[in-house]
Each structure stands twice: as C-alpha cells, then as structure tokens.
C-alpha cells in the first residue's frame, strides 16, 4: 500500500475530490472536517488497511502524511 492509495481512500471517506488533498494537507483545517469525519477515517483505516487508529492518533496528527506514517508503522507492527 502506498501513500497515494491512502490519500485516495481518505478523500473517499471524507467525501472530497481526490485531487483536492495531498500528503501535506492539514486535514483538520478542511472546511468539511468534523467529528463524524474522524469516525469515517478510523473506519477507513480499519476496513482498507486493517489498522486500528485511536481518537488520539487523529488528534495528534496534523497532515494526511502524518496519519499515513502512523498507519504504516502500525502495519509494520501487525
């Protein structure tokens, strides 16, 4: 799995066009971002990457790249 596929799934989860976000996007600053999107991203990580993200994981991440780093490290451990 690559960061590109993560960005693709991320965009789908929060219902924004794929080309509107990138690894550098600070996702909590997006206009559409709210607490329901937190759940959608946790569900996406579980379903598509088999990784369990916590609320704190989302809280401490700023960019989509940060979050991908967490998903990658958790995949490596699993």
């Amino acid at each position, binding site marked *: 799995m690559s960061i590109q596929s993560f960005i693709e799934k991320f965009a789908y989860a929060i219902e924004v066009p794929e080309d509107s976000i990138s690894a550098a996007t600070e996702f909590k600053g997006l206009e559409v971002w*709210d*607490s*329901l999107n*937190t*759940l*959608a991203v*946790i*569900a996406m990580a*579980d*379903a598509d990457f088999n990784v*369990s*993200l*916590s*609320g*704190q994981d*989302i809280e401490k991440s700023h960019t989509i790249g940060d979050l991908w780093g967490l998903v990658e490290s958790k995949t490596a451990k699993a």
Partner: protein
Amino acid sequence: MKSIPGVAIRAVAAAVPTRVARTQDYEYLTPDERTRFQKATGIAERRIVRDGQFASDLCAAAAERVIGHLNWEKESIGALILVTQSPDYPLPATAIILQDKLGLAQHCLAFDVNLGCSAYPYGLAIISSMMQSLSIRRALLLIGDASSLGCAVDDKSAWPLFGDAGSATALELDESAPASFFDLMSDGSGKDAIIVPSGTLSSRRPPGEGPVPHELGSDGITRRPDNLVLRGADIFSFAIAKVPPSIHRAMEASAKQPADVDFLVLHQANKMINDTITKKAGFRPEQSLSTLASFGNTSSASVPVTLCAHAERFQESRALALCGFGVGLSWGTCIVTMPAGAVLPLIETDDVY
C-alpha cells in the same frame, strides 16, 4: 466452556417514554449537520423521559408486563437484579426499592449492577449463575437508563445520540432449556472514553461548594463536572477492534456459525459502528436487527429494546447472538435460544411508580 445450562428466558419486555426528540429539530446543529449526523449515526429520533419519570419507572413498567404476561405469583420470584447507571439514588440500590414497588416478597434478593452498554450479556450471566447456584426458580433481570438526564442538552457529541428506555427479562430454571454461551471482557484503561467525572461526596472528584461550575472541555463543549463525557472516536475504534473477536469467541463456544444464528442483536451505538461490527463478525446485514432510527442509543437497554421492537419476528424459537459494548470499557456476547413468543411488543408509557 463458558456456558450456563438449565435457565430459560420466559419473557422479555421493554418500555420507552412517549416523548419524542427528533434529530431534525436539534437546535445545536445546523440543518446540514443534522442531515449528516442522521446519515452517519442512523438516528432520526429518540424517546426522552418526561419530568418526574426515571429509568426505574421504565423498568417497573416492563417488569409489570412480564409478570402479568406470565401470570407469575409475585411470591414465586426469588431474585431481582437491576443493571443501570441512572439509579434513583446513589444509595440504596434501586433494585431494592423496586422489590417493594413491584410488591415482590422479602425473600426476593435484590441489588444493582453498575454497567452500561454491556449490560445484557453481563446481566444474563450474573442472574443465570445465581439462579443455578442458589436454586432460585424464577428471577427478573431489569435493565435500563435515562441517559438524557445525565447529558448536557447542548453537548452535540452526546445529547442527540441517547434515548431513554427500561426493560425486564423473566427467567426460570428449566432442566430442558438449551445452554447459553458467554464471552465477557473488560479494559479499565479505557475508562475516560465514557465517563461522568464527578459524583457524590465519596467520589474521587466530589462536588464542590457553591454553584455548579461549568467547564470547557478539550472538545470545545461546556459541561458540568457531573455531565456525561463521551469520546466518540475512542469508542468507535475500541468497538470495531474488540467486539467482532468477542462475537467470534462466543460463537465458537456454542459451536455455531453466523448462518446458524437467526439474528445478531448489537448494542445500538450508531450505524457506522454497528454496520462495521456486523460485517467484520461475518453476519449478513439483514441478520442484524436495529432500532437506531426510532430510539437512538438506548444504552444498557438497547438489546431488549431492539428485540421488543421486532417482536413479530419472534413468533418461533430463535437462536440469537446478543452483544453489548461501551462504558468501562466493558463488552461481551452471549449466544441464547429465545423461546417462541417470549419477546413482547414494545411498551410506550408515561407511568411513574
């Protein structure tokens, strides 16, 4: 094997208040947010207790229904256990007060259990074990909460989720009853995921002197210290990671496959959680019964509420996987056989006892 033989469920009743609160009327969300909330959680409306009505009243209404339906002599009931997190008083236990209000005999043992969303599998395990070990022929398991009373009305992360409800399950020793199978789990490291931080004078955080302070939480919501705090994202990741394996273990103990079970009844948390668990546990969407749309998250009572709201599907004997998860963290699953006609239609009531 974690199984309890020889205890039959005779009747299940559940009661909700008549007052309706609709997501589309919730003033602290914008119209767009309401629609989005409803789509993600599946919750269109909930029932809220009227002034002066409490969780114990809803449980009492359900208890009267099962006793009446079964035509049980009140003298014959040997145990009453109430699982609630909205008791009438910090003490004494509300179950004892209900023993008197329901006119049960003094030889009926009664006590409360402090559990929330995991109440149904835990409650069945506790009461069935006591019936077996103490030879208690007939018993009542009451489960219910008035969560609305503990949430701040402007708390968007909690208030629009919860509905109030109470329930009663009547059980009887019966050597011919099929065994029930249990998987019961705990993880106190997740205590902050759902918590009422302050309580009575003997609490870790007692109430202060003077007017009740309101505090701004890290989520930007202002609450009293004795309001419920719900960290939805933490509950979500806990539930989708830990609950499917619990269902799997209970199924394995009962030597059943998802196809052998008629219905999966999950605690009604929200649609995203429940759909994910259903899928991960290997069940078809139509096997998973839901009452989220009409009653929201009814906390401890969600499993019996969901059974009773589908009473017409219980005309014949059913194999069920029943699963609760949440505050604690506490979670569990039981595999039970529900005899034909034991699930009674949902009661709507304003009665107080």
